[in-house]
Structure formats: C-alpha cells, structure tokens
C-alpha cells in the first residue's frame, strides 16, 4: 500500500485473531464467488444448483480453489478465497442452515458446543483481541 495511512488502517485489522476483513481487495478476489451466491436468491437457480452443483457452477468462472471450497462446503476456504459471509449466507440458506450452524463449523466446534458457549454469554474477548499481544 502506497498510502501510509491506509496501510496502517488495514494492518490494525491484521492483528485481530481469527478474523478476515472483507476489504476492497478481497471483494475483487471473491467477485465471481459472491455473485454465484447471489444467484441463489432465485428459486429457479436454487433448483438448478441443487440438481447438479458442478454443472451449475461452470457458468460462474470460479477459481479451482473457490470451486472446491463450494463443493466441499468449506466455509473458511470460501472466505479465504474472497467470499463474504452475507453472500455465503445465500448458499447455506439454500442448504437449510443458519448463521449459527456455519459459525460453529468455522470455529471448529460442534453446534451444541457453540450454542452452549453463546448461552453462557458468548466468547470472552480476553485473549482474543490481538495476535501480537495474546494477553490482552
């Protein structure tokens, strides 16, 4: 980043653990993936996708990594390839899943464990604020 101020702006997020910030660069990277997800807002497209996922995905020019992540429902992989959670929501809604279901998968816990953590007040921010200073 040529602009020092912008560089610092983005760097501050990079220090936050377990978090991908959907910035303009990731938005470019994930454009086709996110547009595929958007297409699932129409019932006829949901039907076509469910009937033959690989065939439906051909028209969206996904990268190999994006294609594999979608087929395997690798949510973290989709995010790393530029997917945004609100776009991916169209895909997991098509599958009949909730935000909590997918959040649990991304944290590596079962849905029961994750739901219990939320009922107990959620994930404590202590120790989850900074990669460079895990004691925060």
């Amino acid at each position, binding site marked *: 980043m040529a602009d020092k101020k912008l560089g610092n*702006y983005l760097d*501050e*997020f990079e220090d*936050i*653990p*377990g*978090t*991908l*910030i*959907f*910035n*303009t660069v990731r*938005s470019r990277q*994930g*454009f086709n993936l*996110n*547009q595929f*997800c*958007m297409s*699932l*807002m*129409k*019932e006829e497209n*949901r039907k076509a996708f469910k009937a033959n996922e690989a065939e439906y995905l051909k028209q969206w020019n996904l990268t190999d990594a994006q294609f594999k992540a979608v087929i395997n429902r690798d949510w*973290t992989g989709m*995010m790393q390839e530029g997917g*945004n*959670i*609100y*776009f991916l*929501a*169209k*895909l*997991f*809604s*098509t599958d009949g899943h*909730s*935000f*909590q279901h*997918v*959040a*649990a998968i*991304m*944290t*590596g816990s079962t849905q029961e464990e*994750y739901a219990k*953590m*939320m*009922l107990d*007040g*959620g*994930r*404590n*921010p202590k120790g*989850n*604020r*900074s990669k460079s200073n895990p004691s925060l």
Partner: protein
Amino acid sequence: MAKIIAGVTTSHVPAIAAAIDLKKQEMPYWQPIFKGYEFSKKWMAEQKPDVIILIYNDHASAFDATIFPTFAIGCADEFLPADEGWGRRPVPKLKGHSDMACHIAQKLILDEFDMTVVNRMDVDHGLTVPMNLLFGDLGPDEEWPCRVIPFPINVVQYPPPTGKRCYDMGKALRRAVESYPEDLKVIVFGTGGMSHQLQGTRAGLINKEWDTRFLDGLTKDPVGLTKIPHSEYVRETGSEGIEMVMWLAMRGALNDDVKEVYRFYHVPCSNTALGHIILENK
C-alpha cells in the same frame, strides 16, 4: 414542517425473522427476547409516527457484489421483502414516502453528503426485523401503520463510513427532515449491532462491558463515541459489531440532550448480543 420526535436502535438478527416466521416466539429461547420489546411496541403505538427513516445495512440482498453504496436512500413508492435464500418473508410490503425521500436525498447531497438514490430495491432482514420488533408480527396481507424510508449504509465492504461521518450525516438528515414543509412526525431507526462476529475462529465473541459503555455513551456522550476507530469496533465487539456506526447516524439526527426512555440488552440472540434503546428528544 416535519419533525424528528425520537430515535430507536435495535439489533436486526436474521434468526429473529426465522423465529417469527416459524412462530417460535413462545419457545423458552425466544420468549425473553420478544418480551424485551413489549414496552417498545406499546410506546410505538402511542407515538403514531407518520414516517420511519430506517437506517440499516443491506446484507447482499438489494446490492450484489457489483456495487457497495456507502450512503443510500430508497425513494420508491414501495419496497418488497427480499428473498434471502428461502423465499420472501411473509411480512407487509413497505410503503415508502417518495416525495419526502426525494427531498431528503436532494438536501443531503447539497449539504455535501453524496447519497446514492435508489429507485427500486428489495429490503432484507436488516429492515424487516426492526419493523416486526417495534410494530409486531404483521402478515403479508396487512399494512405497516406508517410510511418507511429505507436508508442503507454500507458496513459489508471495508472501509465502511466512520462513526463520525455517520453522526455528521445524521445531523444533515435532521436538517433535511426539518426543511420538509408537511407537518409529519418522524422517528429515525439506527439498526444492527451489538457485539457479534459471524466468521472465523473468533465467531461468537461477545463484549458486554464494551456494549454497555456504548449504550451509556449513546445517550450521554455520542460525540465521544464518534472517536472510536473501526479497528476498536472489530477488536472489541467482533467483525460485525461495526454495524454500530449506524446507531451514530440515528443519534446525530436527535437533539444533543435526549431522554433515554427504554433500554434492553440480551445475550444470546443466535450469535449476537442484542441491544435496543429508545431515545426521545427533550
């Protein structure tokens, strides 16, 4: 002259939409959440607003990945609930206030807030959930009791507008409303928040202390809140906690001195710390 009488903030968790549409309101998980809005519904029924200006974010529903408008305003006569992947929600279509929205759009642009004017869009859970929480569970054949001007702010693609920019925009929004000639009662909603992170290994983060300070500040020290950088929202309240900048847009549209009429905070609502506050202009 149109007048802003009050402001409302509330989370707009999509699971609330599912709970309403699947009639789960009396289940033990949901009962305390809906109970938290009983006062609010009574209060709203007494206010009888003519127009709600509803500040929310579109969650990749009306706007796909081709465009991310920072500040937008819906100027159409009506807006349909969006199909977010499971069909359109069974809620009334919104009746807009085209004339007032066009007036506000023009005034804001001339006041140097460069609005995106939207003449057709569907509205997603970010807008329909707050309507349900404050007006009840109306079906698709019923009507909301007032007009609604949808006011989407981008918080999906970074950077979203700063909290200060949102607050200043709220001030301009008030000037725009108060220059509208018709005597209309207006309530401004700022929605989204509070702590929540929907992605990555840190999903489920909740920071009750920070949220409580934000609620306190919203009433008494909004200018102090405008100094919070984006990185603090994300670090302290999760990647989707950034939605709270939209609360500052609402707050900017109110008087400096406001009366906090009601507050509700509840954990959890799905992945989210649900926050809700009602502020009346003194």
